[in-house]
């Protein structure tokens, strides 16, 4: 994973982008969809973009599975995608401010819409966030990207895309993004990025 300094990245949300959002724990049955969509992405992007997943995963926080078992599953899952070259890295927030699991009950800086996950990945890989891309399916994804200074923010169309996190204390007055019909439109995004 030795990428040049000040590299650019494409940050992807998981639920709703790599696979259909079926609620908390969707990752447990997402393998085929994730591979299919990451293959689509990898076949179209020829430039040296880091491909990084950023995701809020609250399945353990809701006490549907033990934190250690769930974390182990998530690590194994994403590591397998890295091994087959479909992914470069991933960053997960397991917290929730109202978690049933007290260990994970936390108002953290990493849960989207906060930009913590983006900052940690930017530090780790020396990523130029301004030249990077984020694709999400919720306005909280856009908020997090905007707070981190990402220039190219894409929002996938779905019925919940404009839902606002009412617990967010500093929700901006407006959000700027480009809407995406579907993942197939990835094909042409690279052209836009290369032109800029």
């Amino acid at each position, binding site marked *: 994973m030795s990428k040049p300094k000040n590299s650019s990245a494409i940050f992807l949300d998981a639920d709703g982008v790599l696979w259909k959002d079926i609620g908390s724990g969707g990752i447990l049955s997402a393998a085929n969809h994730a591979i299919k969509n990451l293959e689509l992405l990898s076949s179209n992007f020829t430039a040296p973009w880091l491909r990084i997943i950023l995701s809020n995963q609250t399945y353990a926080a809701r006490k549907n599975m033990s934190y250690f078992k769930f974390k182990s599953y998530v690590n194994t899952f994403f590591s397998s995608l890295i091994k087959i070259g479909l992914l470069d890295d991933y960053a997960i927030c397991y917290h929730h401010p109202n978690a049933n699991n007290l260990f994970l009950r936390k108002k953290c800086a990493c849960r989207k819409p906060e930009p913590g996950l983006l900052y940690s990945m930017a530090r780790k890989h020396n990523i130029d966030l301004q030249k990077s891309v984020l694709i999400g399916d919720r306005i909280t994804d856009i908020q997090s990207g905007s707070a981190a200074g990402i220039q190219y923010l894409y929002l996938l169309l779905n019925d919940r*895309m404009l839902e606002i996190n009412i617990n967010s204390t500093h929700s901006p007055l*407006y959000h*700027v*993004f*480009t809407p995406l019909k579907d993942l197939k439109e990835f094909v042409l995004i690279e052209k836009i990025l290369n032109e800029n």
Partner: protein
Amino acid sequence: MKIDSILILAAGMGTRLKPYTNYLPKSLLPIGDTNILRNLIILSQNYFPKTKIYVNASYLADKIIKEITFFPIINRPSIIWEPKPLGPAFTVSEHFKAHNHNVLVVHGDTYFSDLAFSQFAHSISLKQNDVSILLCHERIRDQARSQIIEKNGVISEIIELSPSDTNKFFTYSVPAVKVWSSSGAIVIKRNALLNFSPESNASISPTLVNYIARNETLYLEKCTAERISVDNEKSYIEAVKLNESTAKLFNRSIRN
């Protein structure tokens, strides 16, 4: 003069066009085979190719977002989504804070004929220096919602009248007298809004226009071709007719 971005204001509720606007924002009301927003985006892309376009949306924003995906991702406009409408002057002011460059701001309720938009675009491209320009058309004074006070093509003030004022304010005047009125498009040059901080819900006309007129030089640009501000049923029907006539002119098909 180069336009760096185009901002289309489409967040309004279209109150005066209810019930048409109960389920569709005003900028998406069908006008033949198109709508105001689509027409504005196509004209902008034709006459300002490679210029980034932003559309602000609030009321029924999901419908505007879906409409935007009609355009290929390569040159798809970006959305500025306001969960609560901020007011057009505030939206423009925030856009300037993010990008202090030359911006063309167009009201999302203005249906421009190809000729009117192309003339404006051509005139902008001929300017040697960056300038602020308000597009204006002539109207009979009694019917003008906004009235421009200018001298030698430089605007000193714009006066905005409510619909009832336009009937009673000039009852003593000669009906045939014509005045310049705002046409719904303004070019704002970089640095023109550096210290502009409008109250929420402030409008472009008069608040923003008068700020520029008082602090900078604001030039009047004459719009002689057809454009219609769709703000009531009558003007909506006029816009539909204008689309039909220009469709015949350019041999475009009309889908009913």
